[in-house]
């Protein structure tokens, strides 16, 4: 590979990922950018719930102490951070960061940028009035069907605000619902000055972003191929070493665990894939059918040949809406006849729910240890299992029957089949169901509202 190399390191693959990973990325070798992805489909509604309770919440809280810890080294090493840790409240995240940095000694102030405008919650009424129907991409139903139950609504935004922030010299860029992959390809477009209609190169950046966005998963985490052979105690997370032509090498810092091979990279390439020829992002449509993967050895995998097509006129909108309540209760039955005991307990429980006249949208029983993951019918060998977990879940539009269900699990201990244990956790918790409503919107309706704010701390 000839020419200048830009290194974009992955430090978090979701909110709750290993906190040491980003520190190891900064401290174990040279990198230029650290990308931290905190947001999954469901995360936005959780953050929204927190903001409703507390106007200063609604972002990935772990991110602030992490930055305070790393700040002097970011300045020293010239490492810039791009993250969607802002969740539904990037301004509050920035405020906490600025306040915390006041007590951290750095050789120069850090420039922090936030990106806002992806949050459509306060604009929903206006958007619907203006004719944006926000129909469910899967069912075709208009948003007006569930309008009064909407909890959060955010557009997946692309690279433009990230490029603007980088252009203004930001060291830390905090966005809301930026597309995961843009946290990686934004820095690459900035560094290499790729034209915004250079679809092949941007698509290559998207593939790099797809590899980076799930943390350790591209570097030996969760790998099925030779999983016993990977040391995952202190894993190195993936690092993209990109060149101006769009090709890149996936690697990790030497001296850390994990493993980067054609197998680890290919497993991640097919993760959460839809139609590979039609991988839609806000900035291009990438064709994963053109990706070439070559294993160079020594934890280095070369990815090249990616092509892409023009971006679409639409952005995806991720909407979460309240859709009833659910609860799940679990008990463990020991052998002999563990499965038979668990089955009898399920019958007893259902008879009591019937007698109480409780009505649910769904009752689901699973026998953990006897094929629950794939919904398999337990075979003859299941009769000999030393123990079986009984897991029963219910869902209903109202809280009342779900609440009543949670009181019917514990009685099974004394008034049910024998050899039962595993009730240390207490009564099951009633959970609010947040359903997911994917929609599309004319991109101009969102992009006119995107803002980048810069402050020094």
């Amino acid at each position: 590979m000839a020419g200048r190399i830009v290194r974009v390191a992955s430090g978090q693959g979701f909110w709750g990922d290993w906190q040491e990973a980003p520190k190891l990325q900064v401290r174990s070798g040279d990198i230029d950018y650290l990308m931290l992805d905190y947001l999954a489909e469901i995360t936005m509604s959780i953050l929204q719930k927190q903001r409703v309770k507390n106007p200063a919440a609604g972002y990935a809280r772990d991110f602030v102490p992490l930055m305070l810890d790393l700040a002097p080294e970011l300045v020293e090493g010239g490492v810039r951070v791009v993250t969607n840790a802002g969740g539904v409240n990037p301004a509050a995240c920035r405020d906490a960061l600025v306040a915390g940095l006041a007590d951290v000694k750095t050789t120069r102030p850090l420039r922090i940028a936030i990106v806002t405008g992806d949050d459509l919650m306060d604009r929903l009424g206006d958007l619907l009035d203006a004719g944006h129907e926000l129909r469910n991409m899967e069912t075709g139903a208009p948003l007006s069907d569930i309008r009064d139950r909407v909890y959060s609504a955010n557009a997946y935004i692309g690279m433009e605000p990230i490029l603007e922030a980088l252009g203004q010299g930001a060291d830390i860029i905090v966005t809301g619902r930026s597309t995961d992959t843009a946290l990686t390809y934004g820095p690459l477009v900035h560094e290499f000055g790729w034209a915004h209609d250079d679809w092949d190169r941007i698509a290559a950046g998207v593939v790099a972003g797809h590899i980076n966005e799930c943390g350790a998963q591209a570097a030996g985490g969760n790998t099925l191929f030779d999983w016993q052979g990977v040391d995952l105690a202190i894993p190195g997370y993936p690092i993209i070493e990109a060149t101006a032509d769009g090709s890149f090498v996936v690697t990790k810092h030497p001296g850390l665990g994990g493993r980067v091979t054609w197998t680890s990279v290919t497993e991640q390439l097919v993760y959460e894939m839809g139609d590979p020829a039609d991988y839609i992002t806000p900035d291009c449509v990438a064709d994963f059918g053109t990706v070439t993967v070559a294993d160079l050895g020594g934890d280095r995998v070369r990815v090249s040949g990616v092509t892409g097509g023009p971006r679409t006129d639409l952005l995806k909108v991720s909407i979460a809406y309240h859709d009833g309540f659910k609860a799940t209760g679990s008990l463990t039955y020991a052998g002999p006849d563990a499965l038979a005991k668990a089955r009898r307990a399920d019958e007893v429980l259902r008879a009591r729910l019937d007698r109480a006249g409780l009505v649910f949208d769904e009752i689901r029983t699973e026998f953990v240890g006897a094929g629950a993951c794939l919904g398999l019918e337990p075979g003859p060998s299941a009769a000999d299992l030393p123990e079986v977990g009984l897991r029963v879940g219910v869902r209903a539009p109202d809280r009342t029957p779900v609440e009543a269900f949670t009181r019917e699990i514990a009685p099974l201990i004394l008034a049910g089949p024998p050899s039962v244990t595993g009730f240390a956790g207490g009564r099951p918790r009633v959970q609010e169901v947040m359903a997911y409503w994917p929609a599309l919107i004319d991109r101009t309706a969102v992009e006119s509202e995107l803002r980048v704010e810069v402050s020094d701390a």
Partner: protein
Amino acid sequence: MKVPLSRIAFARSGDKGDTANVGVIALAPEAYEHLVNQVTPERVRAHFAGVCRGDVERFELPNLSALNFLLHESLGGGGTVSLMLDAQGKTFGAGILALEVEVPEDVVAVCDRVVAGEIPGRPPGEE
């Protein structure tokens, strides 16, 4: 010879709403055509009959010697609606590898050598 799919392939699975995706990757390029011939959408749907309520779509990725399956309506509604233990289809990748396939003995032998680390699974690349 009849072997479980795990002898010639490995896999990873994930979710998008109520749809599970299962990517199946040939251990060696020689095994890819057997994936294409044997691991049909119909067989995959039957294999996941316990969870899959919708259609199964298949996409071919000859560049990666891989297939991508979309199992629609397979996650109990998806997201937080689902009451399933595996509401994200995380274990479906391992699950598909139990599917039985008919593969020539020499192809299985090549895949075994890849797993043993005796030969690379893909042509080695250059820096």
